[in-house]
């Protein structure tokens, strides 16, 4: 199967590979997928006090399209507010990377990773506010 140039570019030069401190109160971590299914994505976002994504990192176990999808997502989320990030749809990833039908699940997984990272940071923030409120 031939890969699109964009998939190859992200695969060969993945952007924002790495790890953020998952215990940092400003970091949201989303890990989705399963080794048995052949792909696992970990997306981490660092969010400012006013809800803007300042940094993003990923690591992915999976096929080239999965790696490219997560690399692309780290670029897409930076500088956006959490609401804007939450509005990112997998179809945008499919379009940008020209993913064939058999690889659409990779983009779905990337969307799930975004949702999981947002849920994590929101849970952390809620916990903090309860801590602050009760203090």
């Amino acid at each position, binding site marked *: *199967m031939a890969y699109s140039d964009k998939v190859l570019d992200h695969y060969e030069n993945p952007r924002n590979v790495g790890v953020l401190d998952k215990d940092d109160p400003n970091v949201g971590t989303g890990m989705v997928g399963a080794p048995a*299914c*052949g792909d*696992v994505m970990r997306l981490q976002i660092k969010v400012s006090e006013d809800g803007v994504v300042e940094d993003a990192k990923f690591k992915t*176990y999976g096929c080239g399209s999965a*790696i490219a999808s997560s690399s692309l997502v780290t670029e897409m989320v930076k500088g956006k507010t959490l609401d804007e990030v939450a509005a990112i749809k997998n179809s945008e990833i499919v379009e940008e990377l020209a993913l064939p039908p058999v690889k659409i699940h990779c983009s779905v997984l990337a969307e799930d990773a975004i949702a999981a990272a947002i849920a994590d940071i929101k849970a952390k923030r809620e916990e903090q506010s309860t801590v602050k409120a009760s203090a």
Partner: protein
Amino acid sequence: MSTLNIPIYLDYSATTPVDERVAKSMAECLTLQGNFGNPASRSHPFGWRAEEAVEEARRNVAELIGAVPKEIIWTSGATESDNLAIKGAALFNQKKGKHIITMKTEHKAVLDTCRQLERDGFEVSYMDPMENGLLDIEAFKKEIREDTTVVSIMHVNNEIGVIQDIAAIGAITREKGIIFHVDAAQSPGKVAIDVDEMNVDLMSLCAHKVYGPKGIGALYVRRKPRVRLEAQIHGGGHERGMRSGTLATHQIVGMGEAFRIAREEMTAETARMRVLRDRLWNGVKDMEEIYLNGDLEQRIPGNLNISFNFVEGESLIMSLKDIAVSSGSACTSSSLEPSYVLRAIGRNDELAHSSIRFTMGRFSTEEEVDFTIEKVREAVEKLRELSPLWDMFKDGVDLDSVEWAHH
């Protein structure tokens, strides 16, 4: 000084290039100046010459497997041979019984043929291999029933290269009067074959894994004791009525020449393959978390099937873009399932998803192997840097204890 031709072909178990000598012999059977006649034409020398060439090829194929030429039936390839052998023997003997035994690690040409027979009212036992990929002979004996008529076990596995003990199985089936079919698509020229010593009744062969052309194969059909088949393709009664259709002289001549060369060069070639195979394995085996799939000794030289844990096979293949190998993992084939062969030998899904098959052949060189070692090490290191599973492994997390969100 030889130079490296990129991409490097290390997928000889998928198919082989046609040997120059084979191509030449085939080209001589096509044009007006060549041997183009219909081997079935009895009324003129064009037909006689073609028939002579076909019979010489038949002798060459027979000789490599210790058969007599009359026992060789030309087909379009191993898939057709498997179909003809299993369906033909099962249907012919259905009054005696309707039970077939095979293995889970067989090629799809055998498994899907058995599935079709199940739809037609046959019962099939699919034996699990042992962890090394080999058939458990004791378990096999217990599986045999009064109504078992056909046993089909492959000689060399296409994915992991392990060699089944055909002689041991043949001794049992002969004693019980069961027809024994062997899919030997992968073995000619790599392992010695003697259908008499091994007590094989039916054997599927093909040319394109032995430096012959695609589209031609053969079925060995034993004459003493005689094995009878119900034909699957009907027509002009060619090949003793077992497989009708005009014989493709150039294809047959190509297969004959390929098998002749295989017989002559097998000893030297297998020794050379073994050196290359060991060189490749020695070049990577010290890497962390890699697993050899299938027995290292009971295996054809030239095959290495390795799982690189925490790295997904398809992306590894993508990284190895200068090397043509195949993966048992998801996505490369049309199915999204990991290799059923690796699952059958007990590899978990992760390891099955992480496997690469390297198969070397006649035109492989030490330089190619050295280049491959370097590229594999680089690619695995790069992908592990990208892999969250590798991080977790390094942090001592037991991946089996993690609750994964299956999707």
